[in-house]
């Protein structure tokens, strides 16, 4: 290392001497860098390519800054990099800029074409980076934009690589480059087809499609044979992917409906304001997140966890208040309950609109809920994945409460035979309130999850109320397991139909099937049996 640095220094000294000998010639890299001062994207793109080709030591930092939007150009075309704390550094030398701000400082303009050029340039520059993650990125960007001129660079990178995963990525990149190179030997190309076929994903398919269309007969034959296998496995993965999408949609439905399964399913109250309990939960999430951001910015990623109990309490309290002030006067009168709670839902929506304004509020995804992972051929987004787990946890918890606690026992007793329960000494009014509060609180928790995938606006609840009723009625009123199976099967059915029939028609077909099903089995999938139900 020190030997290399010594040589580099020697070269630099020599270079400096040369430059000094000919003072008229400006440094070529500085010359390239003036391109960034242009307002034309063409020139900026040219400057990026020139900078990457020059191999200057400052290039990666400058390109990184350009990508992040922190590269600034002053009126005299000098480049600076702005730090997070607002400090300025000269881009080329890395020296801190002292004294006054250079006049006319503004960020270098970037658009998609420029970003693509940066990505390609970074791919060249970081092939030999000491950080394996950067090398992996470099391999991926070379794979997506194969440039035959890079072949020697990749081959030397493969020779030096010790990390097996990165090595594999480099080999794939090399194969992509070989397929893109018009003058590569046929045998190499056929070997490249084999390497790419192992990937087995959409990217491999599109590369092989191109090879099959443009290659020599032997290459095309190899590509076509590989394509057949890839297409078969892709078709299988696509079914699995749709089932996963369905489970994910089902888990959202389950979350939205599970509170209703208690208020409507167990208590028999047609609560049209259920969606607004969900909305209250989402707004609570917003408030909690804002508070945490203001008080302890380091804990922002955990704000969501704090929001769960907070949303339960807020929506639960709202639910108890509604039950005490309105619903308890309307037991046994479903039509009036429906109208009163519908009116209440409008009141709550407008109240939120007046307090927080009509526009959407921004609830950030914490870092552990952003992005996606690749599991075989499945693309699994983290936010959906966590929501599936979360909904199952909520379901399990609620089942436990209903089965194993005194409150759960009393709830079931009151709903099955109110007078008998009362004569056993259960305070039925109190149990009614708590049951309604529990259902509403669970709806609030659903709001926390929904704030991660949907708008946080006053209309949030409205879009889920119909689906929630659908799930509860389909699954069988008064049965939590029915709600679980109902939600998941509706979700999967919807998502399996969607690629075939489209989102609009798919939803209509599901609704029609549901109506037919309810005609056959009016009590849903898992009807509750017994005399209490018959009466």
């Amino acid at each position, binding site marked *: 290392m020190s030997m290399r640095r010594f040589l580099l220094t020697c070269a630099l000294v020599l270079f400096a001497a040369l430059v000094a000998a000919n003072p008229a010639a400006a440094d070529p890299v500085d010359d390239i860098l003036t391109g960034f001062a242009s307002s034309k994207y063409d020139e900026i793109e040219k400057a990026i390519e020139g900078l990457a080709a020059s191999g200057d030591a400052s290039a990666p930092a400058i390109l990184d800054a350009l990508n992040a939007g922190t590269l600034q150009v002053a009126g005299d075309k000098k480049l600076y990099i702005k730090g997070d704390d607002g400090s300025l550094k000269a881009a080329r030398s890395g020296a801190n800029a002292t004294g006054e701000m250079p006049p006319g400082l503004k960020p270098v303009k970037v658009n998609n074409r420029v970003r693509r050029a940066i990505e390609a340039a970074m791919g060249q520059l970081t092939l030999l980076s000491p950080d394996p993650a950067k090398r992996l990125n470099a391999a991926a960007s070379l794979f997506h934009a194969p440039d035959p001129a890079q072949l020697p660079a990749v081959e030397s990178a493969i020779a030096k690589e010790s990390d097996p995963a990165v090595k594999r990525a480099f080999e794939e990149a090399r194969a992509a480059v070989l397929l893109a190179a018009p003058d590569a030997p046929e045998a190499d190309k056929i070997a490249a087809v084999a390497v790419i076929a192992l990937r087995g994903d959409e990217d491999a*398919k599109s590369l092989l499609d191109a090879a099959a269309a443009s290659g020599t007969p032997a290459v095309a034959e190899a590509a076509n044979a590989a394509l057949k296998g890839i297409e078969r496995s892709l078709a299988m993965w696509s079914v699995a992917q749709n089932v996963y999408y369905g489970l994910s949609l089902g888990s959202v439905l389950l979350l939205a409906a599970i509170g209703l399964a208690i208020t409507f399913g167990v208590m028999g109250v047609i609560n049209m304001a259920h969606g607004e309990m969900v909305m209250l939960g989402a707004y609570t999430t917003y408030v909690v997140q804002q508070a945490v951001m203001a008080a302890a910015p380091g804990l922002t990623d955990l704000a969501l966890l704090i929001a769960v109990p907070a949303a339960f309490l807020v929506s639960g309290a709202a639910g108890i208040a509604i039950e005490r002030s309105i619903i308890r006067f309307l037991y046994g009168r479903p039509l009036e309950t429906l109208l009163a709670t519908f009116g209440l839902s409008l009141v709550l929506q407008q109240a939120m609109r007046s307090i927080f304004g009509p526009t*959407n509020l921004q609830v950030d995804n914490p870092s552990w809920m952003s992005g*996606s992972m690749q599991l075989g051929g499945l693309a699994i*987004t983290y936010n*959906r994945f966590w929501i599936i787990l979360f909904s199952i946890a909520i379901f399990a918890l609620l089942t436990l409460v209903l089965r194993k606690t005194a409150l759960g026992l009393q709830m079931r007793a009151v709903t099955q035979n109110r007078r008998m329960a009362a004569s056993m000494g259960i305070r039925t009014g109190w149990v009614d309130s708590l049951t309604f509060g529990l259902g509403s609180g669970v709806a609030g928790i659903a709001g926390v999850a929904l704030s991660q995938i949907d708008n946080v606006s006053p209309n949030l609840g409205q879009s889920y109320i119909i689906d929630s009723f659908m799930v509860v009625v389909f699954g069988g009123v008064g049965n939590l397991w029915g709600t679980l199976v109902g939600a998941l099967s509706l979700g999967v059915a919807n*998502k399996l139909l969607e690629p075939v029939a489209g*989102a609009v028609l798919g939803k209509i077909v599901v609704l029609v099937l549901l109506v037919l099903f309810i005609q056959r089995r009016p009590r849903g999938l898992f009807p509750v049996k017994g005399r209490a139900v018959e009466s």
Partner: protein
Amino acid sequence: MGKTKLALLAALSTGLAASLGAASASAEDTIKVGILHSLSGTMAISETTLKDVMLMLIDEQNKKGGLLGKKLEAVVVDPASNWPLFAEKAKQLLEVDKVAATFGCWTSVSRKSVLPVFEHDNGILFYPVQYEGEESSRNVFYTGAAPNQQAIPAVDYLMNEEGVKRWVLEGTDYVYPRTTNKILEAYLKLKGVPPEDIMVNYTPFGFSDWQTEVGNIKKFGSAGKKTAVVSTVNGDANVPFYKELGNQGVKATDIPVVAFSVGEEELAGLDTKPLVGHLAAWNYFMSVDAPENKAFIDEWHKFTKNDKRTTNDPMEAHYIGFNMWVKAVEKAGTTDPDAVIDAMIGVSVPNLTGGYSAMMPNHHITKPVLIGEIQADGQLDTVWQTSGLVAGDEWSDYLDGSKDLISDWRKPMSCGNFNVKTGKCGGETVATQ
């Protein structure tokens, strides 16, 4: 008990009398301006802002001394995102309040619902939102973009600057996306794009589960040709759509999404860091560097007492429309609808992007077209714009039913759908497709 009731009644009736008296007194020396925007229901998210901007413009005009020596008076009604109610409220504005002009509507269906009312009662409506075209009424002034002022230039940009070869037309299932996509499909085919490189997909209003759609876009985009998404997805469905795009890793450098219904307001509810580089096509961005725009934003922040409020394209359309109406009334010297409608054509006022917009004989206006990229701070930064102004073309040149039609409300033609082939006026204001 009886006494309090009586007192209450008395108080109520005096209050009522007072307000009635005030109304009749003010009716004589004010000019009434109707504001027909939903303040509740699903569309309140977009339309409430437009009500506020109208109040601000009227307030400013009154500070300048009003119009024709009279004060302007805003009459605000709430059609509650309910399409039939729009027609009812419009009737109330025209027949009961007798407003001189109305500024309102957002969705095309609400405009279609009030159209017969404005034509029957000979009112004036300013419609501020980009729309699908295929309409020209004598009583409506369209200050939003027609498809040739938004959709077509956006497609041209993607084709020329990004080299896009494959197209996904993704829309919400209603009249604006369907008509726009029909026009775009015809245009793309004219430009030599083969049908297998165009994918059209629709989703319901308020759609929130975009997994399959985004998955399909990724699949469609991996065919080796540069792919872009043209999105006419409306309103609330946009936030989950963009969240899913971000999470599934659809980057703007791979598959850019250009949207026609996403502005600063919609982006306010989103973390835009994963979306940097996706595009929007409008005629105005809040980030436009022009002195008129800066003054407008300052005024807006002062009026709303909130310096975080964003401005957007339909607000600029109302700004232009209101100033045009003021100028036309001054020109005509009266608020009589017939005189004002005639005086409107040719009126030219400053827009907020540093130029002038003029009212054309087809009741559409001239505007620049801007393409902006989403920035990490939720603003849109102009990356391209038309060199000059583009005049709104109400009857698309790319659809069979409408390419022979023109609209010219100047006398003696005075026709909304003159057929240049047959030389006849269709008589109706709306094309029957």
